[in-house]
């Protein structure tokens, strides 16, 4: 995918309506456009990214509305339907893993729980962990990265070494070990709550150095810019420079890294659940479904295909959207 290199107006617009909108927008802001607006206009022309964005929005809606959806759909994610299981093989009766008008994506082997309802609820866990751990990583990474880059010296050394250390840390192994020694109850949470909390913290904690490094690098180059020098010579305080002069110019890379980080986090959550240290039963999770499906990949392949597709589509959508955002915000793209 390539980013549009020319000014939007210079190109032949893909549609009249869009062109009109662009022209209209230009008409309103004759003097120049904000970075955000330029990016948005670029993003709008990137069909793949838009499609990704739509899927992402849809997934968020599904996750938020999971209880409503399953209610309308008429199946509880944790209800057993053993009458739909062939007792000889433990797999669903009927073709394609027991797909039917009642159970759109079939039922699970052995216990007959509805797969569609579980996929819908699984989206909750995936997105919750994906987003919140990204938030943790972004907050930590931006703050520490900007501090390292701006202050330099020993502050930079300490933070940079910590980042190096964390990047070299075996995150997955550490998480597995940590989850297994976690108490069942803490901070008013129990069971799955604890697990989700721990996953968010750990994934976020190990994710921040990626953002931290980028922010530090950007800050290093920005702090020598003329406008920062100017602010400094005018007597601006450190925190004014940090938050009013530097931070706004870091927004673009931070957004790009956030959108790229979410799908990675979703995959990490799936991997942890796959390994049995994710959410606890009966809470539905895509990774856990995949792991259960291993024993049935020949006799009931649909059970593996469905959660696999869910993860695939989600990660792909986030990646496409993230790519689009990066291209749209890419400083090298124009200016």
């Amino acid at each position, binding site marked *: 995918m390539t980013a549009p290199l020319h000014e939007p107006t210079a190109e032949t617009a893909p549609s009249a309506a869009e062109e009109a909108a662009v022209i209209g927008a230009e008409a309103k802001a004759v003097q120049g456009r904000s970075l955000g607006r330029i990016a948005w206009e670029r993003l709008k022309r990137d069909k793949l990214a838009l499609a990704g964005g739509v899927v992402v929005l849809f997934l968020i809606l599904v996750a938020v509305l999971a209880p409503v959806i399953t209610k309308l759909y008429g199946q509880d994610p944790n209800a057993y339907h053993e009458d739909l299981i062939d*007792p000889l*093989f433990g797999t669903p009766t009927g073709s394609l893993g027991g797909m039917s008008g009642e159970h759109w994506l079939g039922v699970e082997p052995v*216990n007959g729980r509805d797969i569609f309802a579980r996929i819908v609820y699984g989206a909750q866990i995936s997105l919750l962990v994906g987003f919140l751990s990204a938030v943790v990583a972004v907050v930590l990474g931006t703050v520490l990265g900007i501090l390292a880059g701006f202050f330099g010296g020993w502050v930079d050394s300490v933070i940079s070494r910590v980042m190096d250390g964390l990047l070299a840390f075996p995150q997955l192994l550490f998480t597995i070990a940590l989850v297994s020694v976690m108490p069942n109850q803490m901070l008013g949470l129990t069971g799955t709550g604890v697990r989700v909390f721990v996953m968010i913290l750990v994934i976020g904690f190990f994710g921040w150095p990626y953002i931290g490094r980028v922010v530090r690098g950007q800050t290093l180059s920005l702090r020598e810019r003329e406008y920062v020098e100017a602010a400094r010579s005018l007597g601006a305080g450190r925190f004014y420079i940090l938050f009013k002069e530097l931070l706004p110019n870091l927004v673009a890379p931070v957004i790009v890294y956030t959108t790229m980080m979410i799908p990675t986090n979703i995959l990490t959550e799936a991997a942890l659940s796959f390994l049995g240290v994710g959410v*606890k039963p009966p809470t539905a999770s895509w990774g856990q479904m995949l792991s259960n499906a291993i024993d049935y990949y020949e006799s009931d392949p649909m059970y593996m295909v469905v959660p696999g597709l869910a993860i695939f589509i989600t990660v792909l959508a986030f990646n496409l959207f993230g790519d689009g955002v990066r291209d749209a915000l890419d400083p090298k793209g124009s200016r």
Partner: protein
Amino acid sequence: MTTQRTSGRRKQALAAAAVVAALLTTAACGGGDGGGDEGSKNGAAGFDAANNKVAQASLAKKGGTLKFAGTQDADSWDTTRGYYGFMWNFSRYYSRQLVTNKTEPGKAGAEVTPDLATGLAKVSDDGKTYTYTLRDGITWEDGKPITSKDIKYGIERVWAQDVLSGGPVYLKDVLDPKGEYPGPYKDKSKDKLGLKAIETPDDKTIVFKLPKPNSDFESMLALTSASPVRQDKDTKAKYGLRPFSSGPYKFQSYEPGKSLTLVRNTEWKQSSDPVRKAYPDKITINFFSNANDLDARLIAGDYDLDINQTGMSPQGRATALKQHKDNLDNPVSGYIRYAVFPQSVKPFDNIHCRKAVIYGADHVSLQTARGGPIAGGDIGTNMLPPSVPGAEGQKYDPYELAGANKKGNVAKAKEELKACGQPNGFKTTIAVRNNKPAEVATAQSLQASLKKVGITAEIDQYDGSQSPGIIGSPSNVKKKGYGIIIMGWGPDFASVQGYGMPLWDSNYILESGNNNYALIKDKEIDGLFDEYVTTLDDSKKTEISKQINHKVMEGAYYLPFVFEKFVNWRSSRLANVYSTDAYNGTYDFVNLGLKSSK
């Protein structure tokens, strides 16, 4: 099997998991026409043809290589240290005992028969003295005769638990209950034969003097841990790598976790051994890391049978049931799969809360989670496995688990909750091993059905290999609030002592490695065990076993899931195949033969 120690044996027996029912109906035909020796097209004996009966005995030829495959190596091939059922079974190839299990199918297989000894024990002194005379012509693999002193030394090794841990310790408990003998490695006497309870007046005679009679003593002598070991060949902790053979085969090579090869012991004489037929020339085991891979190789005919004998995994089982039913048997394993309620965790100190769980559970759902009626077993209704004398099977069903309440009885469960003082239900935690998919499935089923009666259960999956320290520690169980523990158990030898004593006798409650998870402290049950141990009359022993089982069920300490069954593969090359209760319904290895000597 497995007692005393929550050893890995149960672990993997548990793996004998899941599925299947329609087979029941087709079983009749499958078994019917496979009954004869001719078998099906490919030569397989037919479905269930070797289940409690001998299949194709007349087709066995001398010679050939018998090929085992497995996913799990033995805990140790040292006769003193092994505790896995398949290891006991396999060890008969290279070790002999005074008495051993009969090489007969089904129940008869669990009876004892003379091996190194000329006959069963001459019991005197009110059951406190057992005397055996040794056969002529019994030899070690270097041709030297096996003496009564070798047998005594082999048994003494059980005392050296600090060096040779892992095996069953029944003999030590019975012969030296106070633990006075320090074991052969710390023995001050010159010949290292200082154990007073065993006398060897000459090389052909051995006398056991029990401080207290024990009616199952001869069954304990039939365990692999009573095998002879020669002092000059005892490599202590390393003995398991290369045991010195007293049987028809000896070790040729062994790479732990990879492969094992036995070849004929040319010094062994058929005339000296009334038990072993020694058909194949060579016996090999190859270990795989993946159970699905193993099943595929069995089905392809690359190997003859699974050394672990835990049943096929769901994938291979489905294929085998569809395409190779004549190669399958569906025996009862002797294990009971169950949930147990530690009384130290509130509200399970109250019998009515325990009963609420028993009534609230959906027993058909639990059975399906275990694998259904074929691969899981019949719904369990009490706590005595079918292979143990005194067992009544589904006939004794005090809570109607296989009857009126088999789908769960919500009304009755709520009544019990009221009687317990928890009319709105309560919260608890189910502890389950994380490495046993079928156990996790039963925990989830229980969680789902208990929710309907208002009992909210959280599932805690712990590291299965750490069981002794996690659920085997009563203080940890209490701390973690494990109100329900999912487990399974099979007999070490077919008696209520070999099955239930560690589970139900208050004397067996331990700080660590405890198996009396319910913390049963019932004077009547303890008393019945004491009575059982000193009773020599078989019919009375059976009666006491029954009573113990009833007492345990009346106390509502356990929720049995299934009397376990499993689906077992035998290749079309095998002859003289039969399952035996001696090793929990698995094939008796020692007399397996091949149809061709290739």
